[in-house]
């Protein structure tokens, strides 16, 4: 049986860890936008995590994990030299990568980690890439350096103005649009209210917008239907049909409600869980504009 060794583990922000994991096969196959399902302990839960980076030659993949509940917190206790028992993937459809005139990558909180590989791929495809990195405060502005290395313009934003642009990612996006910049494509990944707000900003301007959805998953192979989301009136399984979908078609309210299905259980299981910093949490999530 494979054992997935952790080669490097470090903090990126409070409760956010960067893990580099030995997984040669996944590293060779994965494409931007895909994820893995991870099980940290023998009886543990299966959780989906995006592949934030990889190196096929050296045989590793990187995950960026925000400790929001029991399983992610356990993962974030791991150190280099430890091993993860189960890592299955790559899963999901790869991001649609094209050469766009100008593409904007918007990440809220740990969503930036999920957007990063796609931003890299868009740049490699020849697009002009603008990155907006949203955080509640300066310590939640993730991967700024990495984004600067690949993107043409990078705008950190903070809700409290402690760093970069003072305001929500949508405020910065609205500025870009009102500066009459021609934007061809927007990728938005973060808390549900943030993605919904971005969709509302771009819709009237007819800017093609894609979001990466984070419903609760179990198998990640299309077998359980737990991850179903509604896109343009149609039910889709996010793990095999997505996770990226046309933002203007997504029923965000349904997704937000479904993600609260086990709220009581999660609270009981992890009473010291901080409800403020959950990707996918609707009401109190970072970078939220609603």
């Amino acid at each position: 049986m494979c054992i997935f060794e952790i080669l490097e583990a470090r903090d990126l922000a409070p409760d956010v860890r960067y893990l580099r994991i030995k997984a040669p096969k996944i590293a060779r196959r994965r494409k931007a936008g895909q994820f893995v399902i991870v099980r940290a302990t023998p009886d543990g839960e299966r959780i989906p995590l995006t592949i934030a980076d990889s190196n096929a030659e050296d045989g590793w993949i990187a995950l960026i994990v925000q400790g929001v509940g029991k399983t992610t917190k356990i993962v974030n206790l791991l150190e280099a030299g430890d091993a993860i028992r189960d890592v299955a993937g790559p899963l999901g459809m790869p991001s649609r990568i094209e050469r766009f005139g100008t593409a904007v990558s918007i990440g809220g909180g740990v969503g930036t980690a999920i957007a990063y590989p796609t931003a890299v791929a868009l740049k490699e495809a020849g697009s002009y890439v603008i990155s907006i990195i949203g955080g509640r405060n300066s310590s939640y502005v993730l991967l700024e350096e990495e984004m600067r290395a690949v993107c043409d313009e990078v705008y950190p934003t903070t809700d409290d103005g402690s760093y970069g642009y003072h305001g929500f990612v949508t405020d910065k996006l609205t500025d870009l649009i009102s500066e009459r910049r021609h934007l061809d494509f927007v990728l938005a990944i973060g808390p549900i209210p943030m993605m919904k707000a971005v969709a509302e900003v771009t819709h009237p301007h007819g800017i093609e917008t894609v979001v990466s959805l984070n419903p609760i998953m179990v198998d990640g192979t299309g077998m359980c239907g737990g991850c179903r989301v509604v896109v343009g009136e149609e039910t889709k399984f996010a793990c095999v049909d997505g996770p990226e979908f046309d933002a203007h078609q997504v029923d965000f309210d349904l997704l937000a409600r479904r993600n609260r299905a086990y709220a009581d259980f999660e609270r009981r299981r992890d009473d010291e869980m901080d409800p403020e910093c959950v990707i996918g949490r609707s009401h109190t999530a970072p970078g939220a504009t609603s």
Partner: protein
Amino acid sequence: MKEFTLRERMTMARQTMPEQPPGERRANFSEVNLGFTAGLAVLEAQRCLMCSRTVCIDGCPVGVQITEFIDLVAEGDFDGAAKVIKRDNSLPAICGRVCPQEDQCEGACVLARKGRPIAIGALERFVADYERLNGLMTAEPPSVRSGKAVAIVGSGPAGLACATDLAKQGHDVTVFEALHALGGVLTYGIPEFRLPKEIVQAEVAQLEKLGVAFVTNAVIGMIDTLDDLLGEEGFDAVFVGVGAGLPRFPNIPGENLIGVYSANEFLTRVNLMKAYRPDSETPVYDVAGKRVAVFGGGNTAMDASRTALRLGAEKVAIVYRRSEEEMPARNEEIVHAHHEGVEFQMLTNPVEFLGDDEGFLTEMRLQAMELGESDDSGRRRPVPIAGSEWTEGVDMAVVAIGNSPNPLLPKTAADLEQTTRGTLVADDETGRTTKEGVFAGGDIVTGGATVILAMGAGRRAAASIDDYLRGGVWESKPAGVPV
């Protein structure tokens, strides 16, 4: 040992298998059936008339030598009996428990007409358990190796059976499984109280002793395509046994409310992820004291309803659009469900699910049905009765109306022909698909069927793979499938 006359045999009562009392078992996940004792098994075996026309054997999809093994049971040679069964059925402890015997071996038994068929399934289960519990299972990799390597995709009954035969032929076999645990539906679908997971694990351990390698977390199509397996990964042939794991939904308003589960999700959370244990990391909807409706009439519906009872639901109803007679589930499961207190709401169909502001299921709208003309399958078609709709309160709904073939792998192999139903086109006798070196069998070819049929298909494919590997000629005449 006492010999019975034919007349005595004909009048002896069918031995009933001891089981946990309904009141007790509906509160635990331990196996319901406790199995024959040696004494009961011998008595039951002695009832067999040893007919010269072995209609029972004709009734078994894989032709288990029923008279031969029952004869050995009657003589007390339980291990010998197990070995006889294993010539045709490599998973008797499982099939003895889950085969729809009343439609197969026992249904064909001459004594079935008197309502007292030989309890072939219970005997099969008994000897297989005897063999396992007494450490008599044998497995040794053959010393003569073929030098050929076969990849098996999917570790359900089709894959496991195929792997067994190929390993015994001296081929190097690797099983790739998408999940972290092996066994397919046997592990994530069928509950512990009907098929203890320890039995599936014992079968897997046997295969490991035969030299079969298992790779979990390997989603073929994503990590490797079939071409990768046949190319850079160096396999000489591939068997595809990925099952029918795509849950169907009724496509009615409200089916995405919280509390509406597919049976696959509900059972996976409980069986695979052990959500019934208090210390489980995986949540399942808390049904304690609540009302549950399960839609469907097959084994999956019975499993889901009885699982919900065991999680403490106050009321569990099976809602089925035909009548109880048409239910495809095994008889025993229907009887057990009744005894445990599951309610049966027949000739009823859901038309809508309703919820509260938070998106939680609170009510369902149902509709009465009546049976009309017979359809292609010979069953009378349920027709809605106009104006019969009503609303009932419900806290959790489980949809168990069937699964479609899993499209994930077929989608990544364009040269693998599919039918319009999404099943793979493969020759029934040889398992050969439209792609050279690729064989398939089980639910991915037939659509949702049974363990024994999947196993049989796996074994036929193994024989044909062995042929192909030794002769190297690819001849494929997949049966033309009506479009």
